[in-house]
C-alpha cells in the first residue's frame, strides 16, 4: 500500500486493528477507546503503536499520551465531517504534537490542501490511483490569507 507522506509517495506498512480483533505484530494503530483500555500492554509492545481518532473523539483525551504515540490517524467516516480539521489543528497548534498525522477513510483528494494547512502530513487515499493527483493538489495554492499551522 502506498500513501503520501511529507509530499512524497511512499510505501507504507501500518495497519489498523479493529477493537474486536487480536493485536498483531508490526506497526499497528488502534482506536482511542482501545488505547485507553489497553494502554500499558500497548506501551510494552516492541512495535510502534498509533492511535486512530474519529470526528466524535476528543483530542484532549489523549493529550497527555501524545509523546508515546508516533502516529495519529484522523479517520473520516464521511468527507464532509469537518471536525477532523479542528482535531488536526488542536494536535499541532495546542498540544504541539510532532509525530505523523495521517488522514484516512472517506476524504477527497480535493481536501488534501486544506488538511495539509491544518497540520496533516500524511494521506492514505481510498483509491491509490488518486495519489499523483492528490500530490499535485497539495500545491493548489501558493498564497493564503490567514494563520493556521502552515
Amino acid at each position: 500500500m502506498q500513501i503520501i507522506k511529507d509530499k512524497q509517495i511512499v510505501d507504507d506498512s501500518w495497519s489498523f486493528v479493529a477493537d474486536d480483533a487480536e493485536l498483531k505484530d508490526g506497526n499497528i494503530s488502534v482506536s482511542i477507546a482501545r488505547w485507553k483500555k489497553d494502554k500499558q500492554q500497548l506501551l510494552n509492545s516492541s512495535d510502534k503503536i498509533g492511535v486512530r481518532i474519529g470526528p466524535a473523539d476528543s483530542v484532549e483525551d489523549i493529550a497527555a499520551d501524545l509523546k508515546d504515540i508516533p502516529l495519529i490517524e484522523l479517520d473520516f467516516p464521511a468527507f464532509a465531517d469537518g471536525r477532523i480539521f479542528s482535531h488536526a489543528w488542536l494536535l499541532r497548534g495546542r498540544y504541539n504534537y510532532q509525530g505523523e498525522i495521517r488522514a484516512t477513510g472517506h476524504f477527497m483528494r480535493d481536501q488534501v490542501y486544506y488538511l495539509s494547512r491544518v497540520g496533516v502530513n500524511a494521506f492514505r487515499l481510498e483509491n491509490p490511483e488518486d495519489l499523483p493527483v492528490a500530490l499535485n493538489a497539495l500545491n493548489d495554492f501558493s498564497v493564503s490569507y490567514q494563520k493556521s499551522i502552515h
Partner: protein
Amino acid sequence: MYQYNDIDQSLIEQRVAQFRRQTESFLKGQISDDQFRALRLMNGLYIQTHAPMLRIAGPYGLLNSKQLRKLAHIARTYDKNYCHFTTRQNIQFNWPQLEKVPDILEELASVQMHAIQTSGNCLRNTSTDHLAGVCIDEIEDPRPYCEIIRQWTTLHPEFAYLPRKFKIAVSGAKLDRAATQFHDIGLHLVENDAGEIGFRVLVGGGLGRTPIIGQVIKPYLDKKHLLSYLEAILRIYNLFGRRDNKYKARIKILVKESGMEKFSELVEKEWLLIRNALELDNGRIEATKAQFAPPAYEADAAQDTGFAQHQLENKAFATWVKYNTTDHKAPGYRAAFISLKAPDTAPGDMTDTQLDAVADLADRYSFGEIRSTHRQNLILADVKQADLFPLWQQLDGLKLATANNGTATDMICCPGLDFCSLANAGTIGIAKEINEALDDLDYLHDIGDVKINMSGCMNGCAHQSVGHIGILGVDKKGVEWYQLTLGGSSENEAAIGERLGPSIAKDQVTKAITTILDVYIKQRLDDESFLNMVKRVGTTPFKEQVYANN
C-alpha cells in the same frame, strides 16, 4: 474601495484553476455527484430547476463600474441578458452552462471578483450596512473590518466543512441596516465608557426554518481581538455543532441547546488560549482603513440652488428625492437608491443594458462605485445634489427610478418555484400582482414604511419572518398555499413576525395584502407607522378582515 494586491489576485486565479480541474474531473466521471456537489457549492454553483445557478460574491455589497460592466458582459454572453441581486448583497445568474462556469470565473477574476464560498457549509460573504461610510448615524465605517474578515474567511482551511452555512454581518451605525441580529455572528461597532471603539458581538441569530434573534456573547471586544474571537466561536461550532440533522445544524441550535452560559464559557476558554497569537495589529487596521478613505468631495457642493428649484418645479423628481435618496455626511451630497422594483420586473433583477448604463452613471456621478443593498436595490452613495436631477432623468429612462424605496412595493422576494429547486410555491407572479394592486403612488406613499418579504419555501431566503408583512409559500398536497405573518423586523428592535392565521390560497394573497393595508389606513393613529400599529393592536383587527369571508 479595496483594491487587490498580488496575493489577492494570485489566490482567486489559483481558485479558478482549481475549480476548472474539479469541473473537468466531474465531467470525466472521476469524482462522484456527491463530492462534486460539495466542491461546486463552495464555489456558488447550484443545480437548479432549469439550469445551474451561479452566485457571485459582492463583498459587503461594494462594486465598481468595471465590475458592473463585467456582470453585463456575463449576462449577455453566458446567460439570458439579466442577473439577480440577493438579500446578502451577492449576484446570481440563473442560466449558465456547467461547462462554461470556469470561463465565467476567469472573466470575474480579471475584475477582482469571484464566487468563493457563496454557498455550501462554509463561511459565507460578509455583509454590511449599504450606507457604510456615508450615513449620518455612523460610529465608525464597518467596511475595513468587513475586508479583514473577508480575507480571514476566504479559503480558511479549518472551517471549510462546517456543520452548516455560516454568515457574518457588521454594522457601524446606530440604526442596524444589516440585519446583524439575524446572522450567525453579528458585529456592532460600539463605543465603550472610555471612549474607545470596539465590537459588540452577537451570536446565534438566524432566519430560515427556526428564526432566532441573536444574543450578545461579548458586550465589548477590543478590535485587536476580532479575528481570535471569531476563530474561537468557529472552532467551538465546528467541533460541537450538530451534524446529525441539517435542520438543527446552524450555530443558533447549538447556542440554544447548550444554553448561552455554557456556550460562551466554551468560547471564552478557547479564546483565552489563542488570542495572543492572533492579534490584529494596528498597522493592518490602519492600512485597510486607508483603502476606504472618503472620495474627493467638492467643498462647495451645498452651494448649488438648482436642486431645490427642480424639486419645486417637478413633483415626480421631488417624490423620487424624498423616497429614493437619503442624507449624507458630506454637505451637498446625497445617497441615491436605484430601485430594482419596477412594477413589471422580478424584484432584484437587472438587465445587461441597465447594468452597463448604471456603470456609466456611477462613473459620471458617484466616483465609479455602486453598492447593493440588503433589500435588493442598488445605491449610488456619493451623488452631488446638483447631479441628482440629471441622474433621476436618466434612471427614469432606464426604468430604475420607481419612487418606492421603503414602501410596500419595495418587496424582498426570492426567485421562488419558477427557478429554485427548493421552493414549494411561486413568488414572482404574486409580487407582480401586488405591484399592480398598489400601482397608485400616492396611495403607496400614504401607507409609507411597510416592508413586505416573500419566500417560496421555509428556507426563508427572502427573510419573510422579519418582514413587517411576511409571505411564506407552502406546499399542501401539490397546491401552493401562503402563510402570512405580521410585525417582523430586522432592525434595532428585532422581532419575528406573528402568524396571522391559517394559510391562504394563491389567488387570495394580493387581496389579503390590500385588506391588511386598508385596515392600517383606517385604524392608524396620526403618524403611526404600520409596524407600530401592529405592535399596538396586535394581529386581531387584521385577522378579522382577512378571514372575514372564510
